[in-house]
């Protein structure tokens, strides 16, 4: 790719939109995942009794549904990302490539 071509791509408004929105989305979801995980780990390190608290009259503790929920959150976040990336972002990528013509 020549310097002019690079400039051409970088000045394309759709390319700018793609990069901006996808980065924001990917980093937001990553940070959500990290916050969820490290909140869990820090609770275990500093306040394990919180997770050991009982729900209802039986033996079930809060920690069990919380742990299972984190597994589901990981899966759901992945699903949210794939849905938007494979739809909206891929469509945008396709349009960028069409506009760029022979560079692409």
């Amino acid at each position: 790719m020549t310097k002019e071509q690079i400039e051409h791509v970088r000045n394309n408004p759709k390319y700018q939109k793609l990069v901006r929105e996808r980065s924001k989305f990917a980093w937001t979801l990553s940070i959500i995942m990290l916050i969820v995980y490290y909140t869990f780990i820090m609770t275990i390190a500093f306040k394990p009794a919180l997770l050991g608290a009982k729900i209802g009259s039986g033996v079930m503790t809060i920690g069990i549904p919380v742990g299972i929920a984190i597994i589901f959150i990981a899966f759901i976040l992945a699903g949210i990302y794939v849905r938007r990336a494979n739809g909206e972002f891929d469509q945008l990528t396709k349009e960028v490539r069409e506009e760029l013509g022979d560079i692409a």
Partner: protein
Amino acid sequence: MKKLLFIALPLLLNVAAVASGTIEGEIEKQPLNVSAIIMFLLFVSGTLGITYWAAKRTKTAKDFYTAGGGITGFQNGMAIAGDYMSAASFLGISGLVYLAGYDGLIYSIGFLVGWPVILFLISERLRNLGKYTFADVAAYRLKQAPIRTLAAFGSIATVILYLIAQMVGAGKLIQLLFGLPYELAVVLVGTLMILYVTFGGMLATTWVQIIKAILLLSGATFMALAVLYQFDFSLEAMFAKAVEVHGKGEAIMSPGGLVSDPISAISLGVALMFGTAGLPHILMRFFTVSDAKEARKSVFYATGFIGYFYILTFIIGFGAIIMVLNNPEYLDLAKQAISGGSPILGGKNMAAIHLSHAVGGNFFLGFISAVAFATILAVVSGLTLAGASAISHDLYANVFEKGACDEAKEMRVSKIATIALGIIAIFLGIAFEKQNIAFVVGLAFAIAASANFPVLFLSMFWSKLTTRGAVIGGSLGLGTAILLVILGPIVWVQIFGYETAIFPYKYPALFSVTVAFIGIWFFSVTDKSDAAAKEIEAFEAQDIRSQTGIGAEGASSH
């Protein structure tokens, strides 16, 4: 702080045993288990048939390394799950739940949460930039020879360490389950893996992993359902029964000290998350799909399968508490006579295997044993292929021949490398039979997190990365990881027998990853050479390709 460590360390050592899937104690050879052997032979003949089929379709280097790039997202998701759900995690995590209850779940979650982050930040860029190995991406705009040498060294180190753990685990497991001698078991695993990879390349490896994932998930589902069925599918009733029979009582329902000091907790998290994103056999799987779309789908499916699998192992662990613990049939009477308590045959990592017998008799025990063996075969095949690619594609074709080597020759080298790695794995597997191998998987993860991951990540995200920064910083990360593992509690205290460890934490990742990032940053920003300026300039073009896939490797037509 010291007190915290005092509590945390013994538990962390347990984790090491989990991670390597070791089977405790002297193993008595069991009588031949006929149904297990028949089912295992079925698996082997089936997979060898697939290898024959794949061999006819594996003609070019692209076929060999990436199955022609024609694997679908769903298939690849299944294969990633098959690559990642090792026998160590199946037997080790259910064993940890059996021993300590809730703590097993903490470990599972750590293994899972890296996956979405890999999806958001790594998978599609990797697919858009790479061809066969992750070094293709790391060396995209940097100097080929030094970067590929570093990446190949990191890959081979990770692969060999992982292989040792798998081979020793395989030998002991097979000895225990099938009644075959240890050496024979190791040679058998090594030979089969050489056959799959040399003849069938990535296509055969992928299908071995897919079949294994299906077998493992269905076997584990059956066990979990069989356990829940007894309690009319009431989790509360199952937990109540487990609390009643387990020596620790209600403590198994809450965190018990697996991670009780913040440094170890964060360091474990860093090792698991960044380590996963730096495992060469996992990264290589992203090149087997046709484009970024399929790469994303693969991680989504893989996250689902792996998450589901960890929920199953949690139920299986509790099932084992109820049906295996206190059941005289599974007690190790010899051990009980010496140390009391109720130890089970083969140690806690055999809890899931005994449970399979308890819920489905000899036939199902045979099935699960064969699945455990198949699991090891699938993991070692993926590892060997990744190691062979680092040798043939990175070291031979791009460093030694400087990229001017024809494909046929490169493929021949990769096949020779496969055979060599297989033989090395067999020898190391036999040599390490009586050694304490608990540290090797931890070390493999630490190297992946501290050498492979920082270089790969910054090459894609940081424009100012230069060759000098990557090579010095990556090597510092690698060296720190190895040094801290040696000075840490497992090698220094358990193996060398010193009183106290010089480095108190079992997981060095927090420190070694930091060293790597700082080293890469410092030696990049102080690099004022012309070559460095060119490398920084080349980032723009690389970034455009990684964002849009313009110029990316496509799938070959099959």
